[in-house]
């Protein structure tokens, strides 16, 4: 304690002696003292004078008072009698029986066993040791005799209660700790005066470490595997040192020790994970923490392990916990939602299986199974218009499933607009409605597929591939009549008018076709270049392919499917990717304009993936040869261009710095165009 300061001081009159330790009744915050063996004093914090405090004179000598939380104080008399303080105060002069004849009490301890206070004390007489267990409220008393130990006497006792059994630990003078088990008997009918039962003891711990023995004076139990012993360590040829030690009883090891060079009184107390001892002239408080006993900890190999207690200091998990609570409250539907959020593909089947069970929604859907289509749609719209509930997401999944089921049954039925509306307005995922995309593929609903590809985060690679194949195989003429969202492609695909002026204008990074050719050192035929420069696919197809490029995939799963792509389609797709790549490289920032247009990384990844999958086909096909060669040249030129850029990086940086200097002018008139 860094700051020791008496908070209160009370003294008895001259001539009187305090004869047992003062205790505090934690229930009433009163202090209880005994002076001159028989006189009880009870007072509170605000009482200043002990003389004026409550006084009660008892008929017998008090040995000790034990204060038990929730049980009230218990008084143990020299003669072995036990009373609760309440009972005693009702009639202070009551007769106290003498339980022990010529024995002397050595130690006593009190515990709560359920609602019952239990008092244990040990007595000694002519080298024999006895243990008494008393329950004052039931007035039951048991007497036991401790097994004799040759050439050693118990020095110190401590006890605790586990599973209706008192575990008494005894520190013997042969530097050992013994354990004695005393069952707490329920029956009180046992006759008194019978010869005391003999308790057998077992060796728990030998207080010796590498030749040195610990002469213990006090013993405290810390938890089921740890005890603390205060004593002096005597190694042969060395000075005796007093120290506080913590031992692991499970592995018989010394866990830690602390030297106390100023000497102690030999007493040790322990409350709430703190040791209290008198070290020199100071009261020293030492905090401790017992980790769960493990062999690693016992041999000192456990270094950086975070104890679970420490991690519970900071409740980082509040958020998760709260979410958990919510999910417990609304049970299944939310579990479904959580799954859809996590997008566990493996759970797909279970989600589908559970859907019909969802509350009344499932019931409603079953009812609507055979309803006419217009009734179905109006009912479903009503269902979705409801206020958002935690299970709304799952409900919509069910609605879509109901619709797709209906479509499967009735090939003529296909509510295109309704499905589009649902997919566009709700945060659906593939796993919530696994049949939807298959149905759209079957019905060749390009727009719905595009929306799904853009919005679903968890489309299986198989379906992505099926979409890609469907898009590539569609004829341009047919696509022209299809309504798809062109936002991703319209800004850079110039199909209708081959406006070269626009393009030369935006050659920003200094790269030009001429430069490319100079660097390659070979003259590519002019004709092929013009083919490369125009987009190989129509605007609609480009927009659809962009949706594929945007969807998430895993290479390993996509590659086997891509191998099945017909050669013509593969080349068309590669040609489009090449076109995109060239388009990207035209700009300094290598991005394509427009909303949801593919990024350069997506383009490159798909290009590599496609080349990997179709490698042999590409090598064999004559029409692919020129494309590959152009691609190769272009990539090589890009690599050179960037390496040249790297070389002049220093100069560019200097230019940038100069630019900055100019910008830091405090006043300027600039032209600002806002479109």
């Amino acid at each position, binding site marked *: 304690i860094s*700051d020791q300061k008496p908070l209160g001081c009370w003294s008895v009159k001259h001539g009187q002696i305090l004869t047992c330790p003062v205790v505090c009744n934690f229930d009433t915050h009163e202090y209880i003292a005994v002076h001159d063996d028989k006189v009880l004093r009870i007072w509170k914090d605000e009482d200043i004078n002990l003389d004026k405090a409550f006084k009660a004179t008892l008929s017998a000598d008090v040995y000790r008072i034990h204060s038990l939380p929730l049980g009230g104080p218990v008084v143990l008399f020299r003669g072995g009698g036990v009373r609760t303080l309440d009972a005693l105060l009702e009639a202070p002069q009551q007769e106290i029986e003498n339980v022990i004849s010529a024995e002397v009490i050595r130690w006593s301890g009190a515990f709560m066993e359920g609602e019952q206070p239990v008092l244990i004390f040990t007595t000694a007489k002519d080298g024999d040791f006895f243990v008494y267990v008393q329950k004052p409220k039931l007035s039951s008393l048991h007497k036991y005799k401790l097994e004799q130990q040759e050439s050693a006497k118990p020095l110190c006792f401590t006890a605790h209660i586990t599973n209706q059994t008192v575990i008494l630990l005894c520190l013997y003078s042969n530097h050992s700790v013994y354990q004695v088990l005393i069952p707490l008997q329920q029956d009180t009918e046992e006759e008194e005066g019978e010869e005391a039962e003999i308790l057998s003891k077992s060796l728990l711990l030998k207080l010796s470490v590498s030749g040195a023995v610990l002469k213990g004076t006090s013993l405290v139990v810390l938890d089921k595997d740890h005890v603390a012993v205060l004593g002096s360590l005597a190694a042969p040829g060395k000075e005796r040192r007093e120290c506080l030690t913590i031992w692991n009883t499970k592995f018989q090891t010394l866990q830690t020790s602390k030297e106390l060079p100023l000497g102690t009184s030999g007493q040790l107390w322990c409350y709430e994970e703190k040791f209290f001892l008198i070290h020199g002239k100071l009261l020293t408080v030492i905090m401790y923490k017992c980790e769960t006993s493990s062999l690693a900890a016992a041999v000192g190999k456990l270094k950086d392990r975070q104890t679970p207690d420490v991690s*519970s200091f*900071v409740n980082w998990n509040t*958020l998760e916990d709260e979410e958990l609570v919510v999910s417990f409250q609304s049970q299944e539907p939310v579990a479904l939602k959580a799954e859809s959020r996590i997008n566990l593909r493996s759970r797909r089947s279970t989600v589908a299986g559970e859907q019909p069970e969802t509350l009344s929604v499932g019931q409603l859907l079953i009812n609507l199974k055979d309803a006419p289509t217009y009734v179905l749609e109006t009912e479903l719209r009503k269902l979705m218009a409801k206020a958002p509930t935690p299970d709304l997401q799952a409900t919509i999944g069910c609605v879509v499933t109901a619709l797709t089921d209906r479509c499967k049954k009735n090939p003529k039925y296909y509510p295109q607009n309704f499905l589009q509306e649902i997919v566009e307005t709700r945060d659906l995922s593939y796993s919530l409605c696994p049949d939807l995309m298959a149905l759209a593929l079957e019905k060749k609903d390009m727009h719905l597929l595009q929306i799904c590809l853009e919005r679903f985060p968890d489309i299986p690679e198989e379906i992505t591939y099926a979409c890609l194949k469907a898009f590539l195989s569609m004829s341009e003429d047919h696509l022209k009549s299809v309504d798809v969202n062109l936002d991703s492609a319209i800004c850079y695909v110039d199909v209708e008018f081959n406006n070269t002026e626009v393009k030369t204008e935006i050659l920003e990074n200094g790269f030009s076709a001429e430069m490319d050719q100079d660097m390659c050192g070979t003259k590519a035929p002019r004709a092929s270049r013009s083919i490369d420069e125009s987009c190989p696919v129509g605007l609609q197809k480009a927009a659809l392919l962009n949706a594929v490029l945007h969807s998430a995939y895993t290479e390993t799963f996509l590659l086997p499917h891509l191998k099945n792509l017909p050669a013509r389609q593969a080349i068309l797709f590669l040609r489009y990717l090449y076109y995109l790549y060239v388009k990207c490289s035209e700009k300094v920032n290598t991005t394509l304009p427009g909303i949801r247009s593919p990024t350069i990384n997506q383009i490159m990844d798909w290009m590599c993936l496609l080349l990997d999958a179709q490698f042999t086909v590409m090598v064999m096909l004559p029409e692919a040869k020129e494309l590959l060669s152009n691609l190769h040249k272009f990539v090589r030129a890009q690599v050179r261009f960037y390496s040249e850029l790297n070389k002049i990086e220093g100069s560019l940086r200097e230019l940038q710095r100069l630019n900055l200097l100019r910008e*830091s002018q405090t006043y300027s008139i600039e*032209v600002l165009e806002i479109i």
Partner: protein
Amino acid sequence: IGCEDGSVKIFQVVPGGIQFERNLDRRKGRVLCLSWHPSDTHIAAGSIDFFRVIDVASGQTVQRVMVNHHVEKTKRECVVWAIALLSRGTVVSADSFGRVQFWDWQQGTLAESHTVSTSAALSLAVSEKEDSIIVGTSTGATYQLQLLPVKLGGLEKRWVRTKPFQFHSHDVRAVAHSPTALISGGLDAQLVIRPLMEKMQKKSYDAALRKFTFPHRRLVSCARKARLLLFQFSQYLELWRLGSTEETGKDGEVLPLCRMPEHLVQLKSKGPEHIYCSCVSPCGTWVGYATASRFHLYRVRCDGDGVSLRKVPKVPKLVPPAYQLQFSADSDSLFVASARGSVHVFQLLEPGGCKHLHTLRPPSGCSEAVYLLAPSADGHWLAAVSGDWAIHIYNLKCFKHHCVVPTYKCAVSALAIHPITNNLVIAYSDQQLFEFSIPEKQYTSWSRAVQSRGLHRAWLERDSPITHIAFNPKNPSHILLHDTYLLCVLDKSLPLPDDSALLMNQSTLKQLPETARKRQLHAFKICKKFQPLLFMDLLDKNCLVVVERPIMDFKTQLPLPVQQKKFGT
């Protein structure tokens, strides 16, 4: 109020001021910090080397606790910079040794001590539940301490230092603890709001870290006709004439100046008071400013090269201070925002006089002061916003209250009246925009359309509020807005962007050929070229004035931060 001489004085807050009530027990040692007990029975006062607890009813010191124990080697004094008195009798002190200590003041004992910093702990704030404390230190770091159970589910609790934050470069002079966030203000001129993630249910706008450098109010005013700018500093004003050019050019070009900008005059405020608000008239011949207690009006005359400044004598005395000044568009009158919802109208007289004409007051009364004013260009209307966020509109022709704009749940951050349509455009602190037709006393159909459609998410999630609104006289559908990081031309004739569209699409548009632009156009034309933006106004039909205040400009003027060794030497 704790004083240098060691006394603690209690004042009563009465309408219109504070009133001395009594002196509490005076002891030697300057009082540096004070804290009321939540039940108002005691006051803790921190001094050098000790703190004391005073009983308010008796005025007596009931406990005096030394805090400099066990630091004997260093003979420096231990300054208690901040103190907090918790409801269960714990005193928390933050001192110059970087310690946060918990004391049982009744016993005078130290319960816990946490050394949070090697330099001083300067400020602390306690959450309302008293389970969390934020401490600001002189290294710019803030720390959170939380009262947590020692064992999960256990009853015994201890204070644990949980989260360190480093958002400031200099002293953290003030901290506050809201239920969901830690707020700190530093000598580096920043206000930082750090939400506590464990109190946030989901990732949202509220869960983002926020930093504020500039006050959310107008510090620059512009005389459009005279092309003058008035800059308000804390102790003085500066009037500048803008430079000009005769050239034109393409987007992004810097044009050569034919006339340099000219610093016309610096007007120093007398006395220690800071300037609270200022304004220059549109014609550029009147300049007014107000401090906490006084209001000043000046006449500016520019003849040729010379500038003369003359104080207007006998300015009507204002009992409460002015919160905002605004000249009418024709520079004939001056509106002074005042306490209790009132607006004074002064008539400006030639050659240099001023006369109180009228005081406008909301008919239902108001306890809050007016903090924003917007007169209409035709001199017919005046909109005034008071601290209770009510917007009152007055008819200036007959000095009558015209109507109240329906109250909204947020503070008004800027408002202006359209010169042609007399529609009042209002920007709220939650980034919502409303347009209210003054003649028809209702929201316009465009405003209703905006509300039903909703603004773009990127717009709503911006950090800083709109601080100024202007209009383009050439195109009535244009509204010019700005906050600290962007200026925006809001074109009402274009469709509103939906959440999937790119909000800041100017750079994309510039890349597109003219033909492809049409599809991409939407109402918000945003320019982020100028940052941090202090002020923006339209001078004439194609001339915009923009004032930037580079953060480095004032960062370099700050004192050196506390030296911290990064590597062991």
